[in-house]
């Protein structure tokens, strides 16, 4: 196995973890929470569309945004490419590895066979770093795995070129230029401002706080959308998966953002941000309560009107809390 020297680290989230590991490898000292915060990773969106078999929500910004926002705010230039023809994407990855370059690539999470089976679901927007190859296997640094792992060449190829919604198309990237002098203070402020703006000010009814309220309102009507109690139970339990397991989940993203605010307060010598960090931790705890509640009522098939209204009220409460929080945060950096 020809292995590139690359420090494998676990991370809270695959995209911020992969970008952080790439930047660290390129010589830029930056933490995962800092990448997440500068990239305005915190978000909320509730979606009902023909693209999804059932309503869904997201708790982070659009996949790919972290790399793009880091590029914009830190002046880092990334080489990135996707491929219509799989063979070209395979050849390009192999070429870059042969140059001794670790490469980040987008994959279907399901094929990461070195992870426990219960974790693996078909999600087309998982990111990993590829750090070596021999005849039959690639060496993968996946921020969800405790250690580097080998993956069969055909399995990684399948994971990179699977079809479907947000198909990876072999997408790969690495940083090709890191500026010598980076104005982190300015980048932090811009990252906070954009995140707070999107949470409270975007005039779109399903994004940010408006999206949370829409979710709270609509969840009581989910029984009418579900085929039967098993389907409803599955969808309600999926709230737990989205909040706790997938990515790092809503609660986890809130904790990650809280850590960013804490690190930002030290960097900017701003004690107000330290206070906001503590408040965001508590908001994360409340999201975790929702996650637990949804998992419990879903598991017990305790899905009557009263329970769903209770769940709805909990989500409304989160919307109220986050509205106050992000309004204050926005004022601080305006």
């Amino acid at each position, binding site marked *: 196995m020809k292995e590139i020297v690359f420090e494998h680290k676990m991370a809270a989230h695959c995209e911020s973890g992969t970008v952080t590991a790439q930047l660290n490898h390129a010589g830029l000292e930056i933490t995962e929470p800092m990448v997440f915060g500068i990239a305005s990773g915190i978000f909320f969106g509730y979606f009902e569309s023909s693209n999804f078999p059932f309503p869904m929500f997201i708790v982070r910004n659009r996949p790919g945004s972290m790399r793009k926002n880091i590029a914009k705010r830190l002046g880092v230039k990334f080489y990135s490419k996707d491929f219509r023809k799989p063979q070209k994407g395979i050849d390009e990855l192999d070429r870059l590895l042969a140059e001794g370059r670790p490469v980040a690539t987008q994959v279907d999470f399901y094929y990461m066979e070195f992870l426990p089976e219960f974790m693996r679901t078909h999600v087309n927007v998982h990111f990993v770093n590829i750090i070596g190859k021999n005849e039959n296997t690639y060496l993968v640094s996946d921020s969800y795995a405790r250690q580097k792992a080998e993956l069969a060449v055909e399995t990684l190829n399948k994971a990179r070129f699977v079809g479907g919604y947000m198909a990876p198309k072999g997408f790969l990237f690495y940083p090709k230029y890191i500026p010598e002098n980076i104005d982190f203070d300015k980048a932090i402020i811009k990252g906070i401002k954009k995140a707070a703006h999107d949470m409270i000010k975007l005039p779109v009814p399903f994004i940010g706080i408006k999206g949370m309220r829409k979710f709270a309102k609509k969840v009581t009507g989910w029984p009418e959308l579900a085929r039967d109690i098993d389907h409803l139970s599955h969808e309600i339990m999926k709230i*737990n998966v989205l909040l706790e397991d997938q990515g*790092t989940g809503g609660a986890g993203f809130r904790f990650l953002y809280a850590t960013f605010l804490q690190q930002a307060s030290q960097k900017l010598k701003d004690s107000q941000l330290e206070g906001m960090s503590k408040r965001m931790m508590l908001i994360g705890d409340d999201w975790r309560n929702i996650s*637990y509640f949804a998992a419990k009522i879903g598991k017990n098939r305790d899905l009557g009107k009263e329970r769903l209204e209770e769940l709805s009220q909990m989500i409304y409460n989160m919307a109220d809390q986050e509205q106050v929080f992000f309004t204050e945060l926005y004022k601080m950096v305006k």
Partner: protein
Amino acid sequence: MTDTTLIQLKEEVKAVIIKTLNINKINPESIDTSAPLFAPDNPFGLDSVDAIDIIMTVQKHFDVRIADQNLARDVLESIDTLAEFIHREKSK
């Protein structure tokens, strides 16, 4: 922390898990603190809902937060790893 204190902490963690999950059928002394918590043959028979329950109870009882799921997977591997995590966090 001395070995004795860590052993006591492991016993306390064991007791908290038993109480949280309302497990009455098991003799606490028969539980191996190094056994995987989420293995199919573990006497606790835990699932993902129980995992969040434990995470939240640990936070309330010991005042330590398990902030992300990847960390949780490592920390909740066994009673030993959970007790060691609590010990590390309390020592900070």
